[in-house]
Structure formats: C-alpha cells, structure tokens
C-alpha cells in the first residue's frame, strides 16, 4: 500500500507546519506594543488587573502559550477581546460554513471552466479559439479580485439588476452567484493557461506519438493518454489556488456582506482584536495545509513516477 504510506508521510509533515503557524502567530501578537485594554480610557488599575487576571494576561508568556495550545487542542480559541459576547471559536463556527461553501464553489467553478477552456485552446493552437481564450486569460490574471468583484456588482447588481449586490439570506443561492463568480474568474484564467501549456507540452511527448502510431483515434489519444499527464501541473497548482481563493474571500465577503470568516478576520484586524485574528489565521492556515495535502495525494495518485517510487 504505497499510497497510504505516502499519505501518512505527508500527513506527519503537515503537523510541524501547523505548529509553526500557531507558535509564530502567538509570538507575533505578543510582540505588539501595548495590551488589549489600552484603548479604553480611564480604566482603574484594580479593574484592569482583574481583567488581565481573568484573561490570564498576568501570567508569563510561556504559561499563556501553554494554555493557548491546550485550549486549541480542545477546540477552544479563547475569548474575543472586542466582541465580548462571543468566543473566537463561536465566531469561527459561525463563519466557516459560509466561507467553505464560497471557496469550494469557486474552486469547482474554476476547474470546471478552466480545464475545458485550456484544452480547447491547446487543441486549436494558433487558431481563433486559442487566441480568444488566451486573451481572456491574460485579462483575468491581470485583474485582481478587488477590482472584479465591485465591477460585477456594478454591472449585474446595480445596472442590470439581475442579482442581489449584498446580503445573505440562508437558502437563497442567488446571493452567492456574484461572490463565487468574482472569486472564480482569476482562477479560471490561471487554470486555462496552465492547462493549455501543459497539454501542448505533453502532446509533443514520444509516447503520444507511440499511441498515435498504434492507430488509436485522436480522441482516445487525448482523453486517455495525454489528459491524465497534462492534468498534473493543474493539480499541483490547487494548493496555491486554494490560498489565493481564501485571500480573495476576504475581499468578497467584505464587499458582498457575507457572514463568513473573512469578514470577521478583517473586522478583527481593524479592531486589533488579537485573539480573533490569531484564531482565524490558524484556521485559514490549517485549511491551506489540508488543501495542499489533498492536492499532493491527488498528484501522487495521478503521477506514475511517485506511485512507482512508493512501491519500491
């Protein structure tokens, strides 16, 4: 069972990264000048001391870190210093499903449109379809999410009035259309470019000529022989793509008023709510690490070189 050994090794490799994320974000927030209660005016010293004792801030840093890690292992991210009525864990539980739905839909849309567009462009190399797809792809890559999203809202939400511009009613999917499209557009562009380049390269390989020489139909050559190999760069791009989509979701959630994690993170950053920012960053980092892991496993299943290496 080579694949499971590979998966296990990658899984164990992800743990130090996550530990580093936790340690770094904790230490960085402790570097911050001033404490979380500095902004409140005229806080009597006794009350301040009580507050700090209640949050454990009077303890040495390593004790605080130990407590924080213990809490994390139990799924407790600590209290939010600004949203006093909520713990960070509650805010994460509140926003995670929305962010996940948004991100998953964007990645699926990006792959579902980007891969066929790239194949189409590669198969009509130099032709009109190729030039059209590549021109759109260059445009899509040069235009960041924070420009695409307001433009989509302006055209389809305000001028044409086809779709809602902001807000979130559970169970109303039309609210998600513009945010998902805004997140997916740069991804479609990037995947299409990657797919085209990689398919063109694979089609030059000797074993493709061999497959044609065996008299296989062109369709079979492409679908059965060229595509699995050409998909590899796209699969290995899935990790960075996930990171980009998560970063973009900060913009999209803020702009379209979706109650996801990204909006909480931006609010937390604006309010300098350390525990909230720390907790959110740890969850985002874990998501990126898990998605990288999934991409690696998919890669290992597709790539015969890794399969063989694992078996020997």
């Amino acid at each position, binding site marked *: 069972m080579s694949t499971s050994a590979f998966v296990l090794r990658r899984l164990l490799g992800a743990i130090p*990264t996550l530990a*580093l*994320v936790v340690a*770094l*974000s904790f230490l*960085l*927030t402790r*570097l*911050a000048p001033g404490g979380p209660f500095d902004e409140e005016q005229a806080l009597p010293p006794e009350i301040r001391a009580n507050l700090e004792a209640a949050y454990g801030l009077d303890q040495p840093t390593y004790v605080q870190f130990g407590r924080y890690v213990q809490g994390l292992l139990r799924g407790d991210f600590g209290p939010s210093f600004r949203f006093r009525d909520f713990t960070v864990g509650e805010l994460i539980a509140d926003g995670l499903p929305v962010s996940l739905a948004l991100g998953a839909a964007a990645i699926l849309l990006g792959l579902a449109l980007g891969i066929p567009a790239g194949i189409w462009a590669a198969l009509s190399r130099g032709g009109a379809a190729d030039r059209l797809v590549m021109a759109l792809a*260059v445009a899509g*890559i*040069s*235009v*960041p*999410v*924070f*420009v695409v*999203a*307001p*433009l989509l*809202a*302006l055209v389809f939400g*305000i001028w044409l009035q086809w779709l809602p511009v902001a807000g979130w009613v559970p169970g109303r999917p039309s609210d998600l259309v513009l945010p998902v499209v805004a997140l997916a557009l740069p991804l479609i562009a990037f995947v299409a470019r990657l797919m085209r380049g990689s398919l063109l390269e694979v089609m030059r390989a000797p074993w493709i000529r061999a497959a044609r020489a065996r008299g296989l139909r062109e369709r079979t050559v492409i679908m059965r022989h060229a595509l699995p190999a050409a998909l590899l760069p796209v699969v290995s791009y899935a990790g960075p793509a996930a*990171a980009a989509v*998560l*970063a973009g979701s*900060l*913009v999209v959630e*803020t*702009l379209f008023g979706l109650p996801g994690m990204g909006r909480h*993170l*931006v609010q*937390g*950053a*604006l309010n*300098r709510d*350390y525990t909230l*920012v*720390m907790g*959110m*960053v740890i969850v*985002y*980092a874990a998501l*990126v*690490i898990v998605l990288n892991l999934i991409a690696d496993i998919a890669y290992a299943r597709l790539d015969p070189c890794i399969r063989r290496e694992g078996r020997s």
Partner: protein
Amino acid sequence: MSSSLWDAARAALVRDRLAMACAAMLALLLVAAVIGPQLLDYREDEIDWAHMAVPPFEVPGHWFGTDRLGRDLFVRTLHGLRVSLAIALAATMVSLVIGVAWGAIAGFRRGRTDALMMRFVDVLYSLPQVFFVIILTVVFGRGPLTILVAIGAFGWLTMARIVRGQALVLREREFIEAAIVGGAGPARIVARHIVPNLLGPVIVFSTLTLPQVILVESFLSFLGIGIQEPLASLGNLIADGAAEMETAPWMLAVPAACLMLVVFCFNFLGDSLRDALDPRDR
C-alpha cells in the same frame, strides 16, 4: 555572461513592440506619478466646494472628475500610484537584497549550510503569507512602513530559490576556479563573481515581483488594513470607488483602470524580458 548576450537581449526586446510599448507606458506613469501632482491645478487633499462628485470631462481642470468630498480624482490617482509604486519598488529592493545574498551564499557554500538555509526558506514558504502579513499589520500598526516590511519579509523567498539554483551551477564554472586559484576569498567570489552573473534572472524576477507587491498592497489597502486616509493608494481609492459606485462609477473606474494598466504592463514586460534574456530559446 558576455556583453553579446546583453546586446542580443536588447535587440530582441526592441523588436518586441508590445514590450516596448509597455516599458514606455510604465516610464510615462512613473513620471506622471512623481511630478504630475505638482503640475496639476489641485492638490490631492484640496476640497473644491463648488464641484463635488462631478463626472469626468464635465468641469475643466477636473479631467477625471472629483470624489464626494470634491477632491480631484486625477491628482488623487496619481498620488495613489506614487504611494503604490514607492512601496512596490522599496519592497522589491528589500526582497532583492535579502534573496540574492541568501541564495548566493547558500548556493556557493553548498552542503549543510545550504540545506539549513534552504530549509528555512521552505518553512517560511509553507506559511499562508497573506494571513501573516495581516497579523503583522495588526501587530505593528497600519501604515506604509509596516506594509513594506511585511511584504519584504516574504518576498525574498522565491528570489533566494532562483538565485541559489543559479549559484549552484555557476560555482562549477572555470572562472570561479580561476578566481579561487587567484587567491580570492569566499566573500569576494560571491560578491564579485557569482552575483554579477546572476543579473539576468534577477532582473526578470524583480520585474515580475513588482506587480505582485502592488497587488498585495492594494489588496490590504482595499480591506482598510493597508495605506490609510488621507494618504491615497490605488487600493484604498478602489475601495472608496466601490463604496460609491452606484452614484459615481468613475470613482471606481479611474483607479481600477490605472492599477490594471500598471500590473499588466509589468507582467508583460517581465515575460518579454524573460524571453529576451533566456538563451535557451535562441
């Protein structure tokens, strides 16, 4: 790297009309960002009480209209462009200096030093960078300097990898051997023999880093955790525009068009430079 390679690269680049157009456009934008605001009739924070939120080309002097406070959008966009370009250039310089030094030393030293140095790069690479940049802005306050340091802190990683790969190859060449025989110490070899020969890939990658930095800075400024008012950056101008797009769409269109133009030109120029400087393609 002989001078004939540079001559050939320059010739290839001059033949590439679109790349030259991009270079000219970038030069024009740079000049406009640096001296433009002085030449225009309005200052970036000056309020024209008589002309609030006027569309472009309606009032002479306000070529791209004004925002809701009556500030001239052309001047503000040039100002934002100046801030964005300044941060991008500075952060790219930071990542260039650290990345080239780190990569050149790791590649030249090889062995355990190399393994240790590049392991450090790998570890930083595995972090979700944007989110750590956000933590840094939370910790050190929002402002141009934090953005610069935060972006520079991660920007050098790819540069270090590229330079290390090149340095590993270069150190096996005869002229390095000649320098060692000539009595040059390791510091001198890295500084005088390895680094100058890395210039090609370093220039290409720097050109491609600039638009990335502009995008990250604008992204943070758009979210409100980057450059703050009254200072303008392309990011916070786009955020302002997005808030007013229903009534004043030009407030979104002008800075957004400027940003896309800059990013596109840098990307295209970087790609063309890579083609021109890559001898494998000829």
